[in-house]
């Protein structure tokens, strides 16, 4: 373990973790109104550690959905983590127990942060980032349970925009070639289409498969056409 890299990962995740405050508040309010006990609300944050899945579980459970429907929804919502894991494993070599630990608190933000640049491709950095998000999400949940009324002011502050804004900065850095740009544009268009079709959480899975496939296709097309040296993939 490289403690300096872990601290770097922890620090880098801090701005992302702020975005958890209004989400935690919304989650706690929804869970309480559904009649879920405070201990169970906190337990969900500790064991599931997925804001979208937790809120979905609360909504479906309070709406009287079956256990099978709830679990299959949660499965679909989290399938994209398989692709994240495969993608991360290409850059970070993990042994058995390391996989078990790293997988527990993998999130969109941790993946986006770690995969962005080669210097952040390390287990220590990943664990530092994950640890920060796990602690903050659970602290925000606990805080919302304890002093939810004081946090109510945060509900209308668009702090959640910090995450996509940071992702955008990372994405601009990662977009180096014409093919990269084509993949980004196509993926955004596909995401809009999926949203218009009401596909919800499946959108990320579809885009994470459709975008790269488009990139492979367009890359080959350009390679067989008039490719300039600057367009050759790094």
């Amino acid at each position, binding site marked *: 373990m490289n403690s300096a890299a872990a601290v770097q990962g922890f620090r880098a995740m801090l701005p992302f973790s702020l975005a958890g405050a209004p989400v935690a508040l919304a989650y706690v309010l929804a869970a309480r109104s559904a009649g879920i006990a405070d201990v169970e609300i906190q*337990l*969900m944050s500790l*064991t*599931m550690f*997925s804001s979208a*899945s937790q809120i979905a*579980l609360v909504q479906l*459970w309070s709406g009287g959905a079956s*256990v099978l429907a709830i*679990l299959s929804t*949660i*499965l679909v919502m*989290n399938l994209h*983590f*398989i*692709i*994240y*894991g*495969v*993608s*991360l*494993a*290409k850059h970070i070599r993990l042994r058995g127990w390391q*996989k078990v630990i790293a*997988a*527990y608190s*993998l999130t*969109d933000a941790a*993946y*986006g942060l770690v995969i*962005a640049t080669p210097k952040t491709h390390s287990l220590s950095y990943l664990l530092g980032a994950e640890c920060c998000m796990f602690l903050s999400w659970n602290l925000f949940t606990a805080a919302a349970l304890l002093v939810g009324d004081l946090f109510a002011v945060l509900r209308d502050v*668009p702090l959640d*925009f910090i995450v*996509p*804004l940071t*992702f*955008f*900065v990372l*994405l*601009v850095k*990662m977009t180096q070639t014409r093919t*990269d740009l084509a*993949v*980004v544009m*196509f*993926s*955004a268009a596909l*995401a*809009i289409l999926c*949203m218009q079709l009401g596909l919800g959480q499946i959108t*990320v899975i579809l*885009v*994470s498969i459709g*975008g*790269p*496939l488009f*990139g*492979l296709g367009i*890359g080959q097309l350009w390679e067989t056409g008039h490719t300039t040296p600057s367009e050759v*993939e790094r």
Partner: protein
Amino acid sequence: MTILPLITAAAVVIYACRLAGFSLNLSETAPYRDQFLRFVPRAVLAALITLSVMCEPEQMGMKGAVLLVVGVVLLGMRRFRAA
């Protein structure tokens, strides 16, 4: 009805998804797969950003404008550094 068994089952489902990707053994080099995986982060980030901007129509204009300004600034900085 207690929700505890449901929380446990949901936690197991989520953890299984998170662990599955790490557990797939893809150590050998395969050009197409590697190229595919190289595009995955770009596609996922583009999707997450798009979903975030589109999910609240009343804030879409403001968020879009912020991203546009940030994008122009970043591209300007990149060109400046390259020059």
